[in-house]
């Protein structure tokens, strides 16, 4: 084992697996670490101080913390393009063999960064808000300035290749979700599990146990970590408990919905491994609905804000202990510890035990007297009382600490500074409960003066325990976890008795003092930079300046300085920043505001949020029963809602595939001269039964239904109560109290819900039931002059024109399959819509083609359908209408039952001043004067083609095609006062300056008397 190449690795200790050495690469250089390391602990073990450059000033930065709160150590992960992950926090990335990482900033490299010069020289010219104050002249130059500003944007970079991995979701339910498997969380989970509750326990770290894993304390006279292991193994045995290590609760949402992001494979490699032939999902989002939520999320230690506190070698005190005790890494040789509390003394004791020099403990309190203080004294560690580190010395690594006595309350340096030589400064300004999840749904945390931190305000169903609510003592935290679990279960009506917590030694701690920003001899604006938010390079001076400029709300301060907007969301800095703002404004912290957080607690890969809803599973494709045939016969498809509908069927002609125009010309001619067939199965179909079915139809349709006899079919218009057309379709009378309604393809679900809405909420007294039968029936439209000949070959239905008239329907067999055949037409030709139970559709369809060969039966798609119906002036709701068109605008007076006794939906609105206007846009036909012209759909129509812009627009082209039947382009349009403009010549101005001349005509272009459909 080559211990030698990891200079900061201790000979023993820590929870790493020394038998497993892992190689990794950082900024192109190879290093070694061990299984159980994070990238951060491995870098520290190897003495890598400089891990990044800062965002704005390009200052050298090192590792500060050991967990989610780390602001600096963001790296770009991945050895191949597709495996790139930007902005990975080295403190949260488990080491794996072959891990490849780079600093996200620094050019040409992080050691010698050109931009650092800019930072050094220009830093002073970049106060907060400097963008707002400059780059304004001349106005035309901003885009140029911005181009250069943008070059400096960002931390890591996006991969430029598609992700090789996939992600998934797991929906979970539990009675109690415990977030955090530290002392309070374990005690809570155990209490709930023993009470038989369904429990989920998650923890963001590689290993459960939280602070117990690096704790100095004993539980039941054994190392705390051992107790944690016992609890975890008991929980693992319990079927009702789900343990999720490596899983971050990243968002708390309303009604106890919590998203847990489980990193399933990120600790194994840069792409997910394959196990038993299945490639694991890279990570998994657990979408948890919890009866109760217990937050045992612990606390983040606050660093002190002093000069040059960002130089590598400055750490938070707790991180020092964690690296030593959990990873067997001492991140330096000579430590100065600057504290405001007893708890942090542990860092010095651990450092001392690791055999390295503690230069001094600098304690801001005049007379620290807790047990840990005594222990430190007993070891002969120098304690400098009433003092703090004013300023770190050093450039790429701490070389010393300037220390002086201070008056924290008066914000003054009171003594002469002493320079202590050291390479590491650890600091602690107290502990901020991790309250993020509790505030995700808007609850405002409250300031607790006793613990000098915000404690969560809890919404219904959420509980906090242990450090997460300021109970930092180990013994109390354990008991608190158990007690809160019983409270949570009681809220579900479940009784549980709190577990007997393990025996823990209570360590008497002296009172902490409030210290955030350490005063300097120079005023803040002139002092060396004192960083508050290291990721966004926000200094104490910036906050002071913001308050001077009138930014008094903490929200303003944050926005003006960008404090807390980084990927760490200000976990280390926000409260220090608030304290500084409060000092500048002469207010208290709670008066300045509160701190709220938004999901995510830590950033989450888009892929994990997306889950399997991507690529081929992004959105359902709905198929008709005939889909396979369409695919095999070369259909091009159109997306209509979620349906895949054949758009057209290009044929190979002389070895070349037809264009759409060619195919559509052929298909539409076939229908007008021979016979064509359309798969119309996607139309919505609703079975309506009941004695009041007819009355109901009369209320929801604009036209009359009282007299429609069984065997007959009628077209209907459906409006909303604002009078605007919403859907249309035919409805057939199957029996006196039985109807089959059809809807548009896209409108099917909406119409079904619409009918239910009116029935359930307005007219429950009407006896009627609606049932969707869209998928039950397959619908095939056979249409064209030869339709009767073809159909008669394979049906027992009497197709005689007198026996089976237009707008009749009949039962019978088609291709030996029982069918309902509707003689309705959307093409203007003789047409039969054959409906069969969908399982038999393919047989009927194929039989039609067998018999249709001699008639050249031509399959056609939606494009030809559109052309054919447009030639007949038949609208498509949603294309020729847009939610602002009434039946009157469409000129469909024949379908408006003005004298129906019930004021049907939409009727009242038609007499409002605007809907009754005579010059509303009305539905008309347009014929281009040049028959070769096919107008652009959506083009607008004007009277005066030479009018300067803005032009007065009369309306627009809703549908436009070339008609092989008319041998001309033609269009449908809505035009102001259109019905009074028949024969008028208008213009359609195009982008190229041309204007097409058009004549306003009837929208019915073919067979105006409608004879062909009656043949």
């Amino acid at each position: 084992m080559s211990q030698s190449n990891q200079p900061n690795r201790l000979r023993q200790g820590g929870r790493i697996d020394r038998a497993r050495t892992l190689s990794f690469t950082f900024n192109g250089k190879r290093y070694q670490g061990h299984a159980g390391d994070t990238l951060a602990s491995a870098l520290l073990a190897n003495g890598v101080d400089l891990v990044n450059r800062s965002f704005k000033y390009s200052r050298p930065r090192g590792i500060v913390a050991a967990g989610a709160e780390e602001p600096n150590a963001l790296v770009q992960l991945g050895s191949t393009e597709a495996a790139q992950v930007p902005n990975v926090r080295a403190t949260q990335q488990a080491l794996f063999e072959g891990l490849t990482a780079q600093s996200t900033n620094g050019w040409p490299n992080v050691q010698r960064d050109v931009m650092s010069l800019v930072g050094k020289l220009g830093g002073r010219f970049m106060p907060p808000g400097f963008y707002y104050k400059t780059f304004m002249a001349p106005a035309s130059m901003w885009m140029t300035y911005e181009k250069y500003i943008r070059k400096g944007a960002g931390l890591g970079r996006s991969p430029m290749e598609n992700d090789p991995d996939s992600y998934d979701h797991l929906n979970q339910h539990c009675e109690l979700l415990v977030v955090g498997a530290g002392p309070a969380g374990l005690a809570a989970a155990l209490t709930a599990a023993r009470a038989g509750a369904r429990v989920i326990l998650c923890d963001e770290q590689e290993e459960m146990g939280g602070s117990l894993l690096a704790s100095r304390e004993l539980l039941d006279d054994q190392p705390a970590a051992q107790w944690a292991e016992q609890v975890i193994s008991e929980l693992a045995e319990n079927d009702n408990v789900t343990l999720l290590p490596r899983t971050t609760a990243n968002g708390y949402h309303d009604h106890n919905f919590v998203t847990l992001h489980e990193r399933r494979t990120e600790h194994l490699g840069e792409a997910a491994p394959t196990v038993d032939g299945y490639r694991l999902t890279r990570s998994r989002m657990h979408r948890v609905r919890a009866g109760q939520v217990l937050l045992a999320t612990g606390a983040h230690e606050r660093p002190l804000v002093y000069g040059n506190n960002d130089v590598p070698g400055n750490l938070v005190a707790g991180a020092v202990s964690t690296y030593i005790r959990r990873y067997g890494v001492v991140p330096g040789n000579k430590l100065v510890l600057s504290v405001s509390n007893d708890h942090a003394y542990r860092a010095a004791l651990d450092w001392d035990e690791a055999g390295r020099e503690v230069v001094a403990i600098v304690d801001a309190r005049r007379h620290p007297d807790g047990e840990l203080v005594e222990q430190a004294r007993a070891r002969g560690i120098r304690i400098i009382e009433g003092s703090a580190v004013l300023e770190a010395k050093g450039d790429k690594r701490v070389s010393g600490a300037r220390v002086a006595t201070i008056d924290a309350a008066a914000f003054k340096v009171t003594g002469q500074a002493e320079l202590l030589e050291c390479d590491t400064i650890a600091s602690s300004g107290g502990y901020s409960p991790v309250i993020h999840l509790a505030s995700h749904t808007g609850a405002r945390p409250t300031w607790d003066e006793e613990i000098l931190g915000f404690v969560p305000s809890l919404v219904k169903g959420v509980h906090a325990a242990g450090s997460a609510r300021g109970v930092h003592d180990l013994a109390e935290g354990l008991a608190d976890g158990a007690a809160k679990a019983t409270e949570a279960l009681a809220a579900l009506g479940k009784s549980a008795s709190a577990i007997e917590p393990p025996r823990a030694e209570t360590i008497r701690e002296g009172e902490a003092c409030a210290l955030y920003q350490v005063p300097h001899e120079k005023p803040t604006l002139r002092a060396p930079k004192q960083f508050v938010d290291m990721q966004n390079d926000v200094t104490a001076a910036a906050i002071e300046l913001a308050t001077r400029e009138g930014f008094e709300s903490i929200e303003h301060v944050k926005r003006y300085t960008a404090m807390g907007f980084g990927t760490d969301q200000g976990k280390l800095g926000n409260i220090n920043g608030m304290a500084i703002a409060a000092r500048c404004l002469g207010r208290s912290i709670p008066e300045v505001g509160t701190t709220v957080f938004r999901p995510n607690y830590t950033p989450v890969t888009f892929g994990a949020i997306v889950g399997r809803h991507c690529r081929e599973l992004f959105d359902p494709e709905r198929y008709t029963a005939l889909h396979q045939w369409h695919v095999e016969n070369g259909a091009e498809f159109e997306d209509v809602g979620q349906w895949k509908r054949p758009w057209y069927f290009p044929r190979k002609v002389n070895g070349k595939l037809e264009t759409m125009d060619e195919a559509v010309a052929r298909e539409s001619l076939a229908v007008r001269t021979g016979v064509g067939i359309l798969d119309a199965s996607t139309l919505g179909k609703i079975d309506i039964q009941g004695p009041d079915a007819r009355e109901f139809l009369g209320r929801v349709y604009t036209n009359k239904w009282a007299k429609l006899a069984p065997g007959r079919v009628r077209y209907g218009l459906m409006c909303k109560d604002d009078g605007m057309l919403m859907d249309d379709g035919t409805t057939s009378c199957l029996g006196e109290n039985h109807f089959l309604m059809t809807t548009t393809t896209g409108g099917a679900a909406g119409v079904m819900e619409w009918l239910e809405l009116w029935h359930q909420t307005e007219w429950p007294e009407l006896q009627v039931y609606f049932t969707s039968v869209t998928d039950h029936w397959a619908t095939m439209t056979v249409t064209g002059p030869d339709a009767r000949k073809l159909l008669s070959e394979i049906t027992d239905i009497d197709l005689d024109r007198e026996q089976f008239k237009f707008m009749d329907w009949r039962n019978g067999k088609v291709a030996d399959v029982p069918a309902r055949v509707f003689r309705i037409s959307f093409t203007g030709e003789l047409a039969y819509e054959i409906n069969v139970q969908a399982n038999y559709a393919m047989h009927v369809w194929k039989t039609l083609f067998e018999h249709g060969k001699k008639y050249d039966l031509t399959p056609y798609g939606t494009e030809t359908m559109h052309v054919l119906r447009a030639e007949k002036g038949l609208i498509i709701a949603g294309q020729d209408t847009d939610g602002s068109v009434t039946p009157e605008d469409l000129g469909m007076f024949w379908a408006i039952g003005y004298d129906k006794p019930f004021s049907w939906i939409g009727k009242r609105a038609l007499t409002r001043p605007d809907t009754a206007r005579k010059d509303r846009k009305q539905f008309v036909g347009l014929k281009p004067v040049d028959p070769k012209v096919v107008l652009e759909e959506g083009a607008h129509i004007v009277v005066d083609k030479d009018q300067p812009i803005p032009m007065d627009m009369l309306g627009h082209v809703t549908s436009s095609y070339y008609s092989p039947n008319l041998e001309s382009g033609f269009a449908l349009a809505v035009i102001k006062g259109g019905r009074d403009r028949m024969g008028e010549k208008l213009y359609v101005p195009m982008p190229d300056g041309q204007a097409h001349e058009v004549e306003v005509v009837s929208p019915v272009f073919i067979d105006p008397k409608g004879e062909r459909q009656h043949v």
Partner: protein
Amino acid sequence: MFYIHCPYCDEYRDEEEFHPKGQAHIARPEDPESCTDDQWGAYLFFRDNPRGIHHELWVHAIGCRKFFNITRNSASYEILETYRMGEQPRFSAEHPEGKSVETVAAEKVAAEAGMVAGQEGVKA
């Protein structure tokens, strides 16, 4: 992400199974033809839009397909109750703590007595 008790399925279901349908208890005027334009406009478009307790119409779209009402706080998003069409809420801006079950029962009896004559819609 609401967890909604469907009063028909009688259990809590995830929000994604439901569709919100706007303010509850907006009945279509009995005689539309006698409404003024302003009255018709009020029925179509004008809404209470309160910050606080709100009664709203939802449908259990992926589920039993029944419409029902929710009393919800539009600021905290807490759902105070769900109730079937034709029922009256216990909680309201006037009664944020909820009327007692007895009061509701008494009101229901009175309302039913009053409904015998009229064909009042269930949304009223």
